[in-house]
């Protein structure tokens, strides 16, 4: 199910917790699984549960509780826009609208070519740098005004 590299990452996470508390690594393992698969199909969640010796339903509860796990396929680039109040005061809403215009999709949608998924997010803890996006859960983009947004979209090959 998972590559040797991903399995090695799983082992590293498990080692952080007491031997009888393997389940503690479920969040990190699900994140690594999603990184490899692009999203979390049920088989991947079950395989993580199996690896950690926990019931599949318990792993599914975690995967469905936390917003950054994708239980459905997403585009190659998932762009999450913070529109919470501090960001909105400095252009968060407008940056989201601009992205929707450029991509021709709304929040929660994926472009027809499967390249971009757009999501509306909650506070990312970077309000001083608004407007703020996160690409693929990993890369934080600050001060996203039209010119920076254009540049970001060009860089997403």
């Amino acid at each position, binding site marked *: 199910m998972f590559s040797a590299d991903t399995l090695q990452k799983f082992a590293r996470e498990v080692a952080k917790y007491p031997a009888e508390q393997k389940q503690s690594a479920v969040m990190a393992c699900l994140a690594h699984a999603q990184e490899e698969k692009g999203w979390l199909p049920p088989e991947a969640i079950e395989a993580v549960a199996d690896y950690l010796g926990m019931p599949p339903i318990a792993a599914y509860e975690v995967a469905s509780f936390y917003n950054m796990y994708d239980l459905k396929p997403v585009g190659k680039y998932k762009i999450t826009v913070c529109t919470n109040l501090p960001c909105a005061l*400095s252009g968060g809403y407008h940056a989201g609208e601009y992205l929707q215009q450029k991509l021709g999709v709304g929040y929660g949608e994926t472009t027809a070519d499967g390249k971009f998924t757009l999501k509306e997010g*909650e506070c990312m803890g970077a309000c*001083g740098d608004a407007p703020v996006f996160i690409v693929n859960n990993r890369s934080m983009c600050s001060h996203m005004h039209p010119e920076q947004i254009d540049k970001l979209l060009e860089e997403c090959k």
Partner: protein
Amino acid sequence: MAMLGAINPVLMAGLNGDDSWRLKDYVARGGYEQLKRILQTGMTQEDVIGEVKKSVLRGRGGAGFPTGLKWSFMPRSFPGDKYVVCNTDEGEPGTFKDRDIMRYNPHAVIEGMIIAGFAMGANRGYNYVHGEIWEIYKRFEEALDEARAAGLLGQNILGTQFGFELFAHHGYGAYICGEETALLESIEGKKGQPRFKPPFPASFGLYGRPTTINNTETFASIPFILKMGGEEFLNLGKPNNGGTKLFSVSGHVNRPGNYEIPLGTPFSTLLEMCGGMRGGRKLKAVIPGGSSAPVMPADVIMDCTMDYDSISKGGSMLGSGAVIVMDETVCMVKALERLSFFYHEESCGQCTPCREGTAWMYKVVHRIENGQGKPEDLDLLNSVLGNIAGRTICALGDAAAFPVQSFLKHFGSEFEYHIEHKTCLVPKDVQWAGSGFHKIPA
């Protein structure tokens, strides 16, 4: 740059250059000297806790509870595993200080946690990092590796009998995990749903073991308190409000960012440090402590100093020190609509008053904002929020209710205007100008 401005900085002093976060740089700034002093000069657990008590350091995550007192609740001679947990799940809208502490000075957090472990007899720690700041999480893991390699973590630290293990655990998008018992559930690999208290974490915490949870900024302050002495740290601020604090300023100021200033500094001084109001516009309102803190009208906050007691006297909370500044271009109905959506979205669903009540609050504010409000809606909102506050397991319910209550109290006339005229007092194009977003090319 670590800080856009500061007065007598402590935590963020001397942080220049890209490598300020590295062990080598931290040591050059005097880092880990306090840990060495404690372990090598025979300081006792009581000595350390006493110094923290003297400093009147109050929890920097939001509640403002005295740290020294919290530490003294730990049953430190209780046999078996005990835990120290750092809360870097910084998701309170408006707050972005812990991200910069972790980005520029992570070893201060690590040293603070090791010292806390020593003082409370804990042998293991976790730092729970907001999943959205992935690069910072990775950097913290690197800093941990550096500390491990230097013998500052693990067994027999600095050749003594004292051992302490520390690991990073990341969140993955759940505001509720900033609540300390939800955070513990999350580390245990479960949904982040808060636990009923009591029992408190000091007696039943992570894996059911004695545990103390503090905020990132709280831990990062510890080495500096021990270095300068509790009394000097206290004197940096004002009585009952010890030390300096980081304030995250967002919204309608010219230079949003983090500022480290002594507690007790006038709000007007902080506003000046931020370059004043964007476009020279007029200040309308400020949320002084993260989105859960009651909003304050301009004239009230302008008379306050930035410390726990003054802001509390002014009718709000210093909270996490997240100062959200709003000018006259803000529609208060729209502002509250967004906050209400947030609490509705982030309610963990465990307690009915919060799960259902936050949905109703959003629904009602949303219809007022969209010209479908009814005259009885304001009473309805007050009734709903009254049925949430104080009736839930954790403070998210109160946190969701306070903004609604305070917006209605101070800006009720804007809500009435919306209901009566089916439109906003602040024209849409004016709201656009306030955001500072560069115009969309036609």
